[in-house]
């Protein structure tokens, strides 16, 4: 399972990258593989305030529906509307074209509750 070095991760298999106070959020390779073919995503509204580890989006695969939680608190400033018609981007390019939302964060302190790449890799091994 591909894990990208410079990202932060959650136990629910979301990834987040932080650039100049803006967090870009998506789901990991593990998550998309476990869900299988993704067929639908409900994106958050822009300007929505979200708390860390609360629901940000929901995705459906052929098999089931899953919630996506926000790795950090903040305000949604942009969503990836490409995913509405092409939810399969979440399968094909979960770390790049399949990003879900950008969240303006108040502080980076909450990253202490997230995993780094090494820790996430170890976590994935523990799930096997």
């Amino acid at each position: 399972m591909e894990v990208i070095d410079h990202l932060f991760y959650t136990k629910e298999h979301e990834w987040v990258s932080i650039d100049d106070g803006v967090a870009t959020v998506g789901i990991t390779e593990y998550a998309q593989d476990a869900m299988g073919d993704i067929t639908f995503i409900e994106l958050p509204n822009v300007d929505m305030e979200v708390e860390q580890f609360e629901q940000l989006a929901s995705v459906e695969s052929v098999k089931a529906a899953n919630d996506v939680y926000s790795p950090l608190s903040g305000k949604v400033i942009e969503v990836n509307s490409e995913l509405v018609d092409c939810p399969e981007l979440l399968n094909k390019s979960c770390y790049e074209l399949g990003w879900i939302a950008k969240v303006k964060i108040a502080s980076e302190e909450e990253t202490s509750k997230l995993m780094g790449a090494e820790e996430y890799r170890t976590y994935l091994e523990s799930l096997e």
Partner: protein
Amino acid sequence: MPLKQTPIYDDHLRLQAKMVPFGGWDMPVQYESIIAEYGAVRQDVAVFDICHMGEFILEGDAGAIGLDRIVTQSLSDLPVQSCRYGAMLNEKGGVIDDLIVFRLRPERWMLVVNGATIEKDKDHILKHLKTPGCFEDISDRTGKLDVQGPRSREFLKPLLAGIEKLSYYTFDEFSLLGERVTVSRTGYTGELGYEIYCPSDKVVGFWKKLLDLGAQPAGLGARDVLRIEMGYSLYGHELDDGRSPLEAGLNPFICWEKDFIGKSALLKEKEAGVKLKIICFVSDSRRSPREGQDLFDANGLCIGKVSSGTFSPALSRGIGLAFVKRGSVGAGDRVSFGQDQIRTPAQVVSRPIYKSGSLKS
């Protein structure tokens, strides 16, 4: 109880299939992608491991041994080398199982039943047979492969000489790589297709040969999408011991001219008025309905419950089957599905949902 494995289990692992429990069996739900496997069935040719299903052999005159009373479909007019879909009911009219009866010879029958219900079916049949000695459960020594898709006939021609002669819901014996097998032109996908019954110790070799020749292995995930697009019932979802076959739309598979177990209950139900009916519906969006969700009419009134739901790759929409109050809605009517406050608009459609299948081509 540990999950049962089909003879092809090791090859599923080799293919890195995702395995899931299904009716007591450890079965492949997908190999690489449900949608890709679905696409192979709709456009090309695919093969399913269906060894978990049960097969029973019965010898004798259907009336004399009691078989005719056990199943709802008409047997007396079923030609040899033809098969017919129907159900076994309990005295209350609930569905013990749905099944296909094959007439092997004038007085020799094969019943093909669901894998999860083999023991229950066997108990029921043995209880009601007049001559129990005429029954044999051959499930363990019988393998079953379903080859489905518009290219299946051309694909199988070099392997099964004469396969092109089989018409819909007929079967015959063929030679496959030197082994005698029974092949029926049946399936659960809405596409042209065949089901191969063979000795269980030969099934892995056949499976590998079909894959080598280019058939796509397909799992139960694709199978479920295909059958929901066709509006076919799945036991445990649209059918169960407490469900009337009249509600589930099995009326065309019931022979009213004969006596069968459960008939008096169904006649009473008809007289009182059948309460529910099954409908097919298509979501306005890509959001899929899920089993157990409520279905609402255009006024927001709850009229029933979703029994199966999935995403239709053919329509790029969510689709579902639901049991609703008879008379509440019909094809073309607006409905919505969901739970709590979140409701997704949808439309009732006629069955099947997917109308371009190669089933009878």
